[in-house]
């Protein structure tokens, strides 16, 4: 009779068997690519048309934005500001900011005709099911404006880039 409680005690001490919950629930482990630091995404067709706008002609805009270096700082800063912005931070949780910084840079660089190809997804696919609203879009625009302002981009040039992005709202808002 005294053996049963002892046996129970002994059982408690044994560590629980390793359960791979990811396995149980069919979650594939996401591993960042050691080279790019990005998570893999489902395959899609790469095409500059995915950028959602035709690039500017000539090099004025690329110059106004400080070339690829300036554009990269602006894209990265806009992403950083947005993920820290209490109005929209939640939307960025659990998304790959490494990839977003790269693809957003490529998109701006391509549109500003600063010598890049855009390798990301199209705007509809990228924002599907995100529930972005006009006010979220405005928050993102404000953050981008701040990033451009910090780089000293003239206001009229800022607006010319925004003019390329604004029509994409139909594939971003309420998607």
């Amino acid at each position: 009779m005294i053996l049963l409680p002892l046996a129970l005690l002994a059982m408690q001490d044994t560590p629980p068997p390793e359960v791979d919950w990811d396995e149980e629930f069919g979650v594939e482990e996401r591993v960042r690519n050691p080279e790019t630091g990005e998570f893999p995404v489902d395959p899609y067709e790469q095409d500059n048309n995915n950028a959602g706008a035709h690039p500017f002609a000539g090099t004025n805009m690329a110059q106004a934005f400080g070339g690829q270096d300036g554009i990269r700082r602006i894209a990265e800063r806009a992403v950083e500001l947005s993920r820290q912005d209490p109005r929209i931070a939640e939307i960025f949780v659990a998304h790959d900011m490494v990839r977003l910084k790269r693809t957003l840079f490529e998109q701006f660089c391509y549109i500003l005709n600063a010598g890049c190809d855009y390798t990301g997804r199209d705007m509809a696919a990228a924002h599907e099911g995100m529930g972005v609203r006009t006010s979220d879009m405005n928050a993102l625009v404000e953050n981008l404006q701040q990033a451009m302002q910090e780089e000293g981009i003239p206001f009229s040039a800022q607006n010319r880039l925004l003019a390329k992005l604004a029509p994409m709202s139909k594939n971003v808002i309420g998607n």
Partner: protein
Amino acid sequence: MKKIHALAAWATSLVLFANPANAQDEEAGAPPTSGQGLFEGGKLLLTNGVSSVEGASGGGIATWATIGGLEAESGIGLTGHVTLVELPDYGWQSHGVAIGIANRLELSYARQNLDTRDVGTALGLGEGYTFNQDVFGAKVRVFGDLIYGDPLIPQVSVGIQHKRSRDAAILQAVGAGSAEGTDFFASASKLFLSRSVLASATARFTSGNQGGLLGFGNAADKGRELRFEGSVAYQISRRAVLGAEFRSKPDNLGLGEDDWMDIFAAYALTDHITLTAAYADLGSIATFEDQRGAYLSAQVAF
């Protein structure tokens, strides 16, 4: 000059009033991803327009297709404003409020007061006789977006403004047909980001004499006409715009009523306060010509 002091005091009290709200926003910090608040705001600076002299969101003398207040989603936005125009022979003062519902419907009220000063004596009304009018407005955004969507499709709104002068007896003597009238209008407005230019055009079906302050139509004729008003504004920064406006008007009383125009500068002092200064040319008012002067307006918006 006294009026200008009054405006400054009013604006200061707005700053004091608006700032605690700001502080609260920051303190509350994070109800993340913007719930479904009543006064959530969310419009870009200046894209709510300022308050026109009739109380509707617009420029100063022209109405725009914009919906007043800062609400961009399903909640409610509010504005309040006061406007002074200092003319050679008259003093204009107006103030009002507007509510914007879900960035779709705007309801507005404005009170206009035109002080005739010495002209009052000359016209036999008595010195400082003041014409007063209430304007009740409603505006609905029909389609389009000021900023987003197709760059060639503007935001389009339609609306009415019901105006009630408080000077019925005198207006009859002046020859106006009625002391009450209703304007119908359709507006199209768009921010052309590629040029940093906001353009707005409005067609107004109106019989108002001096916008209604001198009544509506004349004794013989209701005098309803289709008239045009428009604004062009250039954005120099997120906070500042420069622009010009024009508004054509009927001349039902045969007093040589002129079109209105102005050049203006608007500045978003804070996210909630916009100041507008303009040089306005209101032409001839009740036979007193060349009424040009300073226009000052302060708007607070949530």
